[in-house]
């Protein structure tokens, strides 16, 4: 099974496929970050610190927003790849979004997204070959269960300002509204954790969707 995933997002043209790779135990983060800072055109990727990614949907939502904005000619940052990183942000501060969500010298878990566009098409095999030769780390499947082990949940809650009763707290009170039946579910604790993660994802998506709206 190929570890690199190629996805056609709903409501985007087939010409704008995205390729996604996930790595852990990265040892050359400084080098990779430097390529972005130098504007090395061989490194046109969204390089995201996987520690602040909640789930696949979270990452795909950022890609969807960035590609949509590209198609509507309303990118706020340099290109569609930097826009993916910016799309993760709950506010309009681009530099801050790179610091929070982008690769840093201390990044060990790295999520990489490459958008193929008609003007610069990229095939899965080309992308995989380049990543294999440039990323020093272990490639792992882009799956929720793998991402879940990397997520720094307190940090995510802090960035998206979800500490005042959000996240799991919200889910708990949700249960109360509806008679608190959730606790009786067959799968017990494991399922509740899954629900909590799903709720965190929903809150994060809402914060991202509201980014930049005024009036």
């Amino acid at each position, binding site marked *: 099974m190929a570890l690199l995933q190629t*996805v*056609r*997002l*709903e*409501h*985007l*043209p*087939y010409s704008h496929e995205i390729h996604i790779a996930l790595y852990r135990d990265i040892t050359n983060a400084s080098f990779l970050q430097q390529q972005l800072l130098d504007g090395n055109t061989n490194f046109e990727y969204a390089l995201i610190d996987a520690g602040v990614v909640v789930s696949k*949907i979270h990452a*795909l*939502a950022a890609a*969807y*927003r960035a590609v*949509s904005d590209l*198609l*509507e000619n309303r990118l706020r940052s340099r290109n569609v790849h930097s826009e993916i990183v910016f799309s993760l942000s709950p506010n309009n501060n681009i530099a801050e979004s790179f610091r929070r969500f982008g690769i840093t010298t201390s990044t060990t878990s790295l999520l990489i997204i490459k958008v193929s566009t008609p003007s610069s098409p990229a095939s899965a095999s080309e992308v995989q070959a380049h990543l294999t030769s440039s990323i020093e780390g272990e490639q792992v499947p882009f799956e929720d269960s793998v991402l879940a082990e990397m997520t720094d949940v307190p940090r995510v809650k802090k960035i998206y300002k*979800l500490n*005042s*009763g*959000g996240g799991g*707290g*919200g*889910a*708990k*009170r*949700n249960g*109360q*509204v*509806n*008679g608190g*039946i*959730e606790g009786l*579910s*067959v*799968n017990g604790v494991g*399922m509740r954790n899954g*629900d909590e993660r799903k709720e965190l994802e*929903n*809150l994060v*998506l*809402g*914060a991202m*969707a*509201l980014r930049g*709206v005024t*009036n």
Partner: protein
Amino acid sequence: MEAQAIHPCAANSDERVLPSIFRHPSAAAPLLITQGAEALLYRSTYLLPSTPCALKYRPSKPYRHPILDARLTKHRILSEARVLVKCRREGVPVPAVYALDEAAGWLMIEWIEGEVVRIRLNEWLKRRKEEDIAEGVDDGELLELMTRVGSAVGRLHAIGVVHGDLTTSNLMLRPRSREVSNGDSETASKMLDGNVVLIDFGLASQSQADEDRAVDLYVLERAFGSTHPRAESLFVEVLREYGRSFKGANVVLKKLEDVRMRGRKRSMLG
């Protein structure tokens, strides 16, 4: 936005171009579910074919001035999205917000499974009639549903949001998560089961005014009443639970008595 707004829209709504979200491919094309005065509601998918969503589209109104039209649409999309996000954060059961494009006039939110209270209640009442069960006998389930509704509305008001159109069509009953869906889900005993989820925040606003809250309750009371007189008499259960749900709820219940006397619209006198 301005350039688009000034462009004259076609008089015939069929000729107007749908936003790009409708034109790009998806596993299942957006399916029209219902149409209100202001918005069209579609079922579609978000990001992956496996994630259903509701797509609410506010087409431009050809009879409105284009600039005014664009501003109204933008304002309404954003205000609905903001209220939903606030509710979700505070643990009030509403659909999550996925994406929006206020210039194009659409809002994409979580798809809520299940059915609206109005339909479930009608079915329940019909079945009881067929089974010849007298009113007031064995209606613990209905009482329980009323309690859940009162609690949900109370939570909503407690965080400073009023719904603006609280009818039994805007209350969903979502099947409890991962329940065994086969078996006796068809029996009357399950018909009123499920988690209450508030939907359609198109007329919602952020308000702490007792008057606004009381009008929400009044509209809901009338909605239950129009379903069935018995349902109306059980509305006291909604109010009982509501009264317990937040500090200040009792003041709202007092206000409700005034609203009942005069109706939904506030008097222009004095």
